[in-house]
Each structure stands twice: as structure tokens, then as C-alpha cells.
């Protein structure tokens, strides 16, 4: 079965989590991945959106983290301060998914600004829940397409900490969680080196060559001694993902005439 790079990334992300995980779910690809996991190999997984919906089981993918569908299908919905205090900060969330505009070799990320903060070339949305998610989730997974513009030698702005300057930097900052466990791109999967914590390619997606990864990375990228092949999505995974995407598109067409702009 053929698939798009986005589908491969989504499936690879979905496979990172299991039944016992309590996931902090962001909108977009993370939401698709977590719900794909829930609809395939991890029916008992707990999904939490930062809108405070705990144990959401949406039948279509939400466009925003606060869609009514999330609240209606959740075990309960708590106030946002409570979410950040009792549920995230407390370390109860085992897995979080992040995306970014820029990432460096230690998986620190930038979602704030391209260029100088005071005179930005591109103003990005900003931090949202990402910094404390990066600090408090037991493990995080970063999912983003790979390019030299995004995989940079030096971030324009460090929004959310990954492995800092590498090594035991997180621990020295008093952070007890593991940090970024995988970076999943449209070309490969990277994992932090056990010692240096520098991102290292551990598997290449079907059809990707090492040179493709090298030319899409803004630093001299390292490869693990035993680089594997990322397993392709199964037919079942693709079917489930496409069905939920189709249902979602239908739902988002809206019940009313769209934006009344003439």
C-alpha cells in the first residue's frame, strides 16, 4: 500500500506509545498519531489535551485543542490551571509530542520566532504548553519534516529545552524527566546518543539514503553504528488513519456556509 511522508510520520509516532501511556496531545500530526494509536494497538491509552480534557476519545480529529468533541468524549474536563498544576507539572504525563519550526542537534526547539526576537523575520505562534511539556512529560517525541531551514546549527530562540548542551545538562538543571526520546522526520528517526545526547539517526525510512538526511540537516549529522529501516505503515494502520482523516474533513466542512466573506 502506498503512503505519503506525512502518513509514515504519523504511523511512526503512533507506534511510540502504548496502552499504559498518558499522552499530552497537541493539535495536528500529534493528535492524529495519538488517536491512531488508540484506534489500533493501544485502545486503553489516555489522551489529554491542554484544554483540560482528560481521557478524550474523539471520533473525528479536533481542529483545535478545545473542540467540543474532546470535552464530550472525555472522562472529565478540568480547568486549565489545574491541568498544568496537578496533571502536567506533577509528572503524571508519560508521553508528549512536540513539533517545531527549528530544532538543534540536542533536540532543543524553537516555536517562537525566526530572526531576532525584537525584529522578527517570521513571528511564530510562541510557546503554548511546550516548555513545561518538554520539562514535565516523562518522555517527549518530536515530529517534524526535515530540512536545513528547520534542522539548524543554532536556534534563533530556545523555546523548549531538549537535552540542552548535551550530556547530563538536563539533570544538572534539576530536571528529572528523560526529555526527547525520538525525533521523527519525513526521512528518518533520530534518537539521542546515550552519552552525548546528540541526535543520531537510528533508522532510515524506506527509500531514504544517508545523503538525503545529510543534505537536509544543518549540522554534520551522526548515524548510529547499526542504522535500521523504519518499518513501513501496515495496511490496517493506513486504513484507520485515512478513515479518521476523511471523517474529520467531512466534519470540518462545517454545518453552515463557511466564513461569510462574499
Amino acid at each position, binding site marked *: 500500500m502506498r503512503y505519503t511522508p506525512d502518513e509514515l510520520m504519523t504511523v511512526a509516532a503512533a507506534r511510540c506509545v502504548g496502552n499504559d501511556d498518558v499522552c499530552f496531545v497537541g493539535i495536528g500530526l500529534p493528535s492524529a498519531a495519538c488517536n491512531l494509536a488508540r484506534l489500533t494497538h493501544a485502545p486503553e491509552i489516555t489522551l489529554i489535551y491542554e*484544554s*483540560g480534557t482528560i481521557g478524550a476519545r474523539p471520533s473525528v480529529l479536533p481542529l483545535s485543542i478545545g*473542540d467540543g468533541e474532546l470535552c464530550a468524549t472525555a472522562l472529565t474536563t478540568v*480547568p*486549565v*490551571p489545574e491541568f498544568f498544576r496537578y496533571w502536567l507539572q506533577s509528572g503524571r504525563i508519560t508521553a508528549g509530542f512536540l513539533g517545531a519550526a527549528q530544532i538543534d542537534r540536542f533536540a532543543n526547539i524553537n516555536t517562537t520566532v525566526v530572526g531576532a526576537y525584537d525584529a522578527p523575520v517570521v513571528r511564530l505562534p*510562541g*510557546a503554548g504548553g*511546550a516548555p513545561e511539556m518538554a520539562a514535565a512529560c516523562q518522555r517527549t517525541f518530536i515530529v517534524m519534516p526535515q530540512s536545513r531551514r528547520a534542522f539548524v546549527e543554532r536556534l534563533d530562540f530556545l523555546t523548549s529545552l531538549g537535552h540542552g548542551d548535551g550530556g547530563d545538562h538536563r539533570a544538572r538543571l534539576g530536571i528529572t524527566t528523560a526529555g526527547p526520546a525520538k525525533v521523527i522526520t519525513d526521512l528518518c528517526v533520530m534518537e539521542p546518543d546515550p552519552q552525548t545526547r546528540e541526535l543520531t539517526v537510528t533508522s532510515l525510512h524506506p527509500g531514504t539514503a544517508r545523503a538525503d538526511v545529510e543534505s537536509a540537516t544543518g549540522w554534520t549529522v551522526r548515524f548510529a553504528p547499526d542504522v535500521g529501516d523504519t518499518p513501513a505503515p501496515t495496511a490496517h494502520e493506513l486504513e484507520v488513519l485515512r478513515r479518521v482523516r476523511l471523517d474529520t474533513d467531512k466534519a470540518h466542512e462545517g454545518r453552515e456556509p463557511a466564513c461569510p*466573506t462574499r
Partner: protein
Amino acid sequence: MEGFTHLIPFAAAHEVIRQGRRDLTLVRMTPDLIYDQMIGAGCAAKLVFSWGGNPGVGSLHRLRDAVEHGWPRPLALEEYSHAAMANAYDAGAARLPFAPFRGCPGDLARVNPNYRSVTCPFTGEAITAVPAMRPDVTIVHAQRADRQGNVMIEGITGVQKEAVLAAARAIVTVEEVVDTFDGGPVNSCILPHWTIGAIAVVPGGAFPSYAYGYYQRNNAFYLAWDGVSRSRDAFGAWIDEHVMQSGPDAFAVHAAQVA
């Protein structure tokens, strides 16, 4: 003007734009389309926020235009993470001067001097602190008020309760007024009448966001806004037709259509 994705007080924002308010400091975790419209209309001198995108769609183009090009006027930013702002509202509601939380090291603390630190008097740990958020006025939208003026919020309650309790004054728009809340869930999110300054009944007032139990989020509007807001001219024409030449009654159609 709070409302975390849910119950965003668009009708109230349009009234603010119509009244030609200027030099406002706008506070909101997620500026969303509501502040994109107010910023584009020139109401805002400063934005206090933690995530400024069109959820699931992309940029807020009016916000970006203000920050990147100073149009229609320069916009000062005071930027936090969600956790920082949620804790700041919580401290504001509790009348503590600061909110301690486990922050994440990074550049936000470099560009925002309101990121400071307190030392735990028991463990010696350094804990991040931000000042309590105490808005002059908080405006929220809610499902219903009772005849006494108590207000009930249901579904995703976000930071609305905290924002109301943290503010010097609070204004609430509601979908409807009911006789009493008696018989509802005993642990409902209810704001007593003595915490609220004024209530306006504006059915549909959260459109294109939603009111749980009343009407759904109009995701198509959020998708279409990307096009409208990209150009200054299209935005101006939209504001003129749908805000300046319109009124709060225009929202009622949205409440009715998807009830």
C-alpha cells in the same frame, strides 16, 4: 477576554472594535481570531499572551503584521508559556502576589523580565515565579445566567473562572437567562452574582467558537479566516461589513442555526 478555544467572547470584542477603543493592553493565553481582529482594527497597544496562532490552521496574520511590520500600529509583546499564564491567573484569583511553578529553562525568561525565581524555604530549590495576573477588566462568554445574575460555565472552562476572579471588574455575555440553576450538577462551575459587574445576553456571542450544549465550533470559519486575514484590504472590508456595519444581534443567527 478569556475563553480557551471554547466560549470566546467574539460579540463583546466586536463591540469594543465598534466603540473605537484604542491603546488597550490585551491579555489572553491564546489570542485566537478574536485578538487578531482587535489588533488588526487598531485597538491594541500591547499583547500579553502565550500562544498566538490560528489553532490547527496556521498564523494569525493580523498579529504577525503588527509584530513584523507595525501595522496598523506597533504592538508590544509580553510573552509567557501557557503554564506561566495559567498559574498567573490562578494567583490573581487567589490574591497572591506571585505564582510559583516549575518552569522550563529557555529564552522566554531572557526576553520577559517577569520571569523570576523564588527559593523554596524547605528544600532550597529554585522555583520559577511570575507575577499574579490582575486584569482591570475581564470579559468572558458563558452558557447561562440565572435571574439573580449568577453565571454558569460548562464544558472546557479554561481559565475563565480564574480570569473573572482575578479581575478588578468582570463583564459576562451569555447565551440565555434561566430562572434558576437548581437541579443542576452540585459541583458546577458557577460564578456568584457578586463576582460579576455586568451581564449581557448575546445568543451566539461566541461564534465562530462555540458554546457547549448550544452550538458547535465553526471550524470552516477558522479555516476561511486564513484567507480573509492575509490581506490588509480584505481584512478591512470584512471588519467594515461584519463589525462596523453590524451589531450584536447579528450573532443570534449562529445560535439558532446549530442548536
